[in-house]
């Protein structure tokens, strides 16, 4: 099977900057920083894959490697089935890159002039350039201000233009690096919706998204990889990741006529990891019961059956997932701590 992106044992080291005194003491010593340490990944076509990690984790280095902007020290990677070592041009024809760096445009030119320039570099004829720009502007609803100078744009508009540039050659794979880094919540939400709905769902593109925003990763990514200090620490869907961190599912129920006996009876079930209750501050006749269940699919019906059998009336039942923030912290603590 050909994956959209596949990496095998990617390693990248950068030379470490040394002080003059260190150079004087050991002039020939070469010190390096490991940015990527044996990265293995497989991304399927049409997938929205997120690479999640703190600043300096190696996300941008990985994207640069996959875009053939830098070469690894060891390992191999294929993008659209092409090797990053031997088929650089074929890769460049099939990918788009969107960076969160808003300075990557010519500020004294209009948005359209910027797009025209970068589109020409994709070996398109003048008529193709015009058609493609209009098509992308329409997709991203950018037509209105595209003839204004770039430096007059809002941050959200600049980010949309970066997305337009990434899409200008109609790539099958889009690399997006921190797309909502400096956006307000509304603009960030718009970009996420655009990526998820228009590019992945409608157009079937593969998106490789680097972010340190947990909420963003959870909202839009099909699968995630957590990276820290150049190592992939965990890989899977957000729910798979939760399971690796915690086997417990948390439920909060609002009930009437809950008794101590009922609670004790439920506590005896070995699938109940934790149970507690308290009166609802807004309505003292209602109790709030919190249970954490192992194997919740079979345990929850039993809990509900016990409650109903022993006379409690269930007013509400909510399921709370482990926040991705906790998953991230736990994964980094467990695996990152060993490095």
């Amino acid at each position, binding site marked *: 099977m050909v994956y959209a992106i596949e990496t095998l044992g990617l390693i990248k080291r950068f030379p470490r900057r040394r002080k003059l005194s260190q150079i004087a003491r050991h002039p020939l010593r070469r010190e390096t920083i490991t940015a990527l340490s044996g990265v293995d990944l497989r991304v399927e076509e049409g997938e929205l894959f997120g690479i999640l990690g703190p600043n300096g984790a190696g996300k941008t280095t990985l994207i640069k490697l996959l875009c053939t902007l830098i070469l690894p020290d060891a390992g191999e990677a294929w993008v659209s089935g092409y090797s990053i070592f031997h088929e650089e*041009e074929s890769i460049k024809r099939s990918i*788009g*890159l969107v*960076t969160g760096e808003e300075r990557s445009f*010519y500020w*004294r030119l209009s948005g359209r*002039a910027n797009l025209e*320039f*970068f589109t020409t*570099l994709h070996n398109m004829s003048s008529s193709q350039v015009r058609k493609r720009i209009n098509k992308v502007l329409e997709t991203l609803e950018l037509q209105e201000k595209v003839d204004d100078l770039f430096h007059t744009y809002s941050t959200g508009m600049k980010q949309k233009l970066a997305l337009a540039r990434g899409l200008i050659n109609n790539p099958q794979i889009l690399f997006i690096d921190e797309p909502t880094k400096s956006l307000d919540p509304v603009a960030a939400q718009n970009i996420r919706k655009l990526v998820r709905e228009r590019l992945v769902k409608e157009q079937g593109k593969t998106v490789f998204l680097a972010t340190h925003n947990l909420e963003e990763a959870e909202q839009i990514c099909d699968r995630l990889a957590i990276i820290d200090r150049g190592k992939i620490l965990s890989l899977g869907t957000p729910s798979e990741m939760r399971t690796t961190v915690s086997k417990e599912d948390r439920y909060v129920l609002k009930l009437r006529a809950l008794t101590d006996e009922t609670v004790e009876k439920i506590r005896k079930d070995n699938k109940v990891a934790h149970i507690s209750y308290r009166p609802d501050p807004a309505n003292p006749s209602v109790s709030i019961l919190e249970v954490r269940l192992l194997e919740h699919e079979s345990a929850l019906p039993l809990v509900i059956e016990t409650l109903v059998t022993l006379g409690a009336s269930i007013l509400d039942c909510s399921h709370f997932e482990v926040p991705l923030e906790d998953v991230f912290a736990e994964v980094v603590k467990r695996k990152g701590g060993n490095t």
Partner: protein
Amino acid sequence: MWQKIVAFIKRDFSITASYRLSFFFQFFGILFFVVTFYFIAKLFGKAAVPYLASYGGDYFSFVLIGIAFSDYLGVGLSSFAGTIRQGQMLGTLEAMLVTPTRVHTIVLFSSIWQFLLTSVRVLAYILLGVFFFGVNMTRPNIPAALLILILTILAFSSLGIISASFIMVFKRGDPLNWVMGSFSTLFGGVLFPITILPDWLQKISYFLPITYSLRAMRHALL
């Protein structure tokens, strides 16, 4: 290819023209230079003739060609490195490198505008000299001058590309640009003929491409 050349020129022209005041002062500076050296030449009078006999004996004509064409050295040395450095600073370099256009095309085409602009400046120097300050170019060998110009640009550009490689690796601090720029001004015969230098210093001049370029250009034009 032509479409890309036009795209690069259009980009750089639009950016340069958007800084109107700087664009205007660039040409105003030429006038100041020409006037300054016109009066320095008057001060020397006939005293410089023995050194300049093979160039027609006029210091003003000599120095005008020197200053005008040494601009090509500056651009040849700095434009490639400057293009890369500017791209790194603006963040546009990666956006260009991720396209199927090859690196050498990006670097070469990014410098075309600088060479065009330099050619306009050189023309301004010569026209000012000829029409307002009495520079004698009655029998210029234009085909020879163009050939010398092309060879000059090629020679200077090769140094410039080496200089750009320093920028790619070290980001700043390009030693070749500094050495070639400083040595060429002092020993390349830009402001005075190299025959005025002691013999042992003249040996340095023979290692600099600008020495040959300016000598040939003066013989072609004066």
